[in-house]
């Protein structure tokens, strides 16, 4: 038998820090079933007994309108954790307690962890724990999770509550929280409506409140018949007339009146004169009218140059050398000695090991990038960046929070797509993910380098720059179009807390970084691996399952030849281009090496003279430009594809994304070639 403690709290209340502090290395990160919201579980250290800790999503309320809120509420209602540990930010008790009131309404065993006591002390807030406990009627334990203070005591109290749980119920609080007219409406619904429901409810007081509030989820679960709904409506209207507000607002107001009065009694704040907190001082610079945007761009540039520049390319080379060099050679010679068949050796070395390599090279970059991103997130800067950039993205139907993922897309789509997790709104996330592949990532650069060297040697920089710009323009237009068509819907509110600046904990950063790397390998790894092996197979064999002499003779080559006519209107109907683009699914830079092989210039991954001459024979500047544009926009590489699948958690949307980008690529390349031809370019 083990006990289950669930952690519940607002975003930015230090919940994750507390979770890390309690569980340490025992934690396990997964997804909640059917959604891409992280589920963290772990075992409690520092205390005897088998206690499982479940970290519920950070939420402001238990109203069932966001995925996070539904998950948290369903978990508490259905899984019945032994104790719900409600984390409250001690510097912001009034708003944090709004969630507490809803937990108490539920009548579950709650223990309040009053976190960030150090910050509250520093601000000069004096908090009377006794007053809080007497009003909330649950234990309140002051802690500072980032320093580990009070955590053991918190767990002991929670354990104590769990062991004496049966007696503890949250119901009594109802009467203190809501006024008489609300309470009597609840009681009447409990008496007159609930017994007439088809399904039994365990928690009739809470159910009555939810029905009064007009909670659609509860109505749905209980299958409340229309007749009863209209009866409930009478109770709602009575209150609405009395208060001159809609029923949801009445109840929310009532909860806030309670939290305001409790906070007023329990917290003595130091007289706030004109003095500025540290947060205010940082904000003065960071969100300054003139400095804000340059500062943001500078910071992004710094993160970029480290992640994708020197250190990033060093780690890529290192992993590449390790996997495709050392390990591949080791297996090669070992298989040689063992006398393995040629195809088997090729499968293992060029299929499996190279496939692993193409996946593993991303891992260090993902970890470095998320190290920086979690610093931005944990310090509170991310929210400011969204605040500063929101106006720009609004036009696309996105919010400021999409800016950073899109920007990361210029480095690599894989971590960019992963970083969309910070977007709460499902539609915004989908749209952002669909637009990210249009940001020209680092792997497309070798293609541009080769083709511009062959055709635009006089103004290479300008041509490459124009391609980056083209990607941005396409993303902007796509934003407009998608938001008006398949991703139509209510505008997501941009109502966001700007948390005070905080110093992130080293432990938290490390855990986050490790999770992202591990998650990528585990979740995206299988798809990438499978795709790599399949592509190897198609590339190695011809239709009689004999080893193909060159990629052109392989199954993949045959497919390339078959689809080549599709590219004729784009100016590059040559089968070699088609095959090269197919291999580009493995990794975009593979387009270049395939071109080299097909043109009979082996090992020509750079712009060697032979390859340039060969390209000049089959392309013109115009078709080369159309080809580059197509390479930029079409189907993302398999690593990005697998990550999109993981983050969208839907094959349908993944395929829509892939199909959309390829369609757009075709259309754009078509326009470039045809319009270019009309204008007399060649």
């Amino acid at each position: 038998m083990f006990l289950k403690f669930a952690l519940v709290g607002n975003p930015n209340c230090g919940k994750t820090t507390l979770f890390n502090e309690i569980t340490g290395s025992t934690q396990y990160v997964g997804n909640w079933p059917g959604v891409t919201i992280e589920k963290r579980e772990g075992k409690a250290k520092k205390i005897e007994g088998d206690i499982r800790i479940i970290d519920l999503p950070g939420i402001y309320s238990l109203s069932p309108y966001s995925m996070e809120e539904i998950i948290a509420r369903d978990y508490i209602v259905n899984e019945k954790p032994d104790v719900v540990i409600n984390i409250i930010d001690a510097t912001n008790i009034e708003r944090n307690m709004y969630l507490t009131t809803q937990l108490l309404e539920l009548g579950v065993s709650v223990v309040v962890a009053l976190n960030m006591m150090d910050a509250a002390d520093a601000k000069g807030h004096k908090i009377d724990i006794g007053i809080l406990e007497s009003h909330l009627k649950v234990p309140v334990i002051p802690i500072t999770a980032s320093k580990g203070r009070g955590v053991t005591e918190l767990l002991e109290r929670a354990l104590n509550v769990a062991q004496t749980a049966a007696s503890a119920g949250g119901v009594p609080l109802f009467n203190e929280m809501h006024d008489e007219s609300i309470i009597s409406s609840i009681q009447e619904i409990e008496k007159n409506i609930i017994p007439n429901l088809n399904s039994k409810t365990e928690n009739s007081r809470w159910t009555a409140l939810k029905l009064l509030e007009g909670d659609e989820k509860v109505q749905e679960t209980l299958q409340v018949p229309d007749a009863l709904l209209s009866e409930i409506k009478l109770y709602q209207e009575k209150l609405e007339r009395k208060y001159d507000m809609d029923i949801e607002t009445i109840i929310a107001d009532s909860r806030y009146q309670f939290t305001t009065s409790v906070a007023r009694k329990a917290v003595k704040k130091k007289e706030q004169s004109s003095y500025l907190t540290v947060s205010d001082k940082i904000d003065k610079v960071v969100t300054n009218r003139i400095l804000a945007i340059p500062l943001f761009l500078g910071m992004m540039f710094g993160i970029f140059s480290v992640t994708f520049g020197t250190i990033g390319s060093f780690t890529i080379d290192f992993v590449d050398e390790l996997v495709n060099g050392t390990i591949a050679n080791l297996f090669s010679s070992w298989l040689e000695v063992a006398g393995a068949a040629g195809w088997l050796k090729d499968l293992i070395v060029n299929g499996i090991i190279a496939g692993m390599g193409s996946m593993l090279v991303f891992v260090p970059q993902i970890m470095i990038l998320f190290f920086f991103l979690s610093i931005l997130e944990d310090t509170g800067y991310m929210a400011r960046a969204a605040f500063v950039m929101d106006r720009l993205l609004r036009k696309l139907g996105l919010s400021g929070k999409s800016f950073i993922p899109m920007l990361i897309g210029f480095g690599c789509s894989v971590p960019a797509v992963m970083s969309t997790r910070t977007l709460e709104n499902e539609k915004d996330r989908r749209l952002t993910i669909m637009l990210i592949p249009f940001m020209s990532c680092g792997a497309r650069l070798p293609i541009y380098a080769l083709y511009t060297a062959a055709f635009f040697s006089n103004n290479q920089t300008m041509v490459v720059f124009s391609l980056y710009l083209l990607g941005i323009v396409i993303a902007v237009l796509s934003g407009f179009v998608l938001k008006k068509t398949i991703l139509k819907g209510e505008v997501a509110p941009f109502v966001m807390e700007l948390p005070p600046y905080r110093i992130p904990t080293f432990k938290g950063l490390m855990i986050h970084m490790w999770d992202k790397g591990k998650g990528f390998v585990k979740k995206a790894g299988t798809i990438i691996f499978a795709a790599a092996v399949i592509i190897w197979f198609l590339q190695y064999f011809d239709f009689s399952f004999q080893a193909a002499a060159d990629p052109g003779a392989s199954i993949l080559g045959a497919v390339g030849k078959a689809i080549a006519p599709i590219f004729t209107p784009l100016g590059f109907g040559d089968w070699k281009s088609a095959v090269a683009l197919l291999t580009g699914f493995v990794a975009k830079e593979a387009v270049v090496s395939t071109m080299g092989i097909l043109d009979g210039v082996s090992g020509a991954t750079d712009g060697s003279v032979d390859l340039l001459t060969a390209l000049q024979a089959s392309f013109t500047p115009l078709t080369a430009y159309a080809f580059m544009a197509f390479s930029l926009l079409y189907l993302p590489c398999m690593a990005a594809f697998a990550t999109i699948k993981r983050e969208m958690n839907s094959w349908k949307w993944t395929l829509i994304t892939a199909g959309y980008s390829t369609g757009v690529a075709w259309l754009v390349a078509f326009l470039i070639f045809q319009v270019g031809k009309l204008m007399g370019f060649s």
Partner: protein
Amino acid sequence: MERTLKELMPGEKSIITKVLGDKGAVKRRLMDMGVTRGAEVLVRKVAPLGDPIEVNIRGYELTLRKSEAENIIVA
């Protein structure tokens, strides 16, 4: 003439008297964030590009767009 939160200048303080709008994602979100009748708001600043705005409410900093602030009536 009713004033909305959008019309307050940075540094101005007021009390929320009403949040307009039907039941919708925006209204619910505002409710959850403590933007309800009787709460005191202080406009802190406007974002560098002119929108959104930052306010202080119930002891914390909140940002919202002007289009959302337009629905919040203040005294």
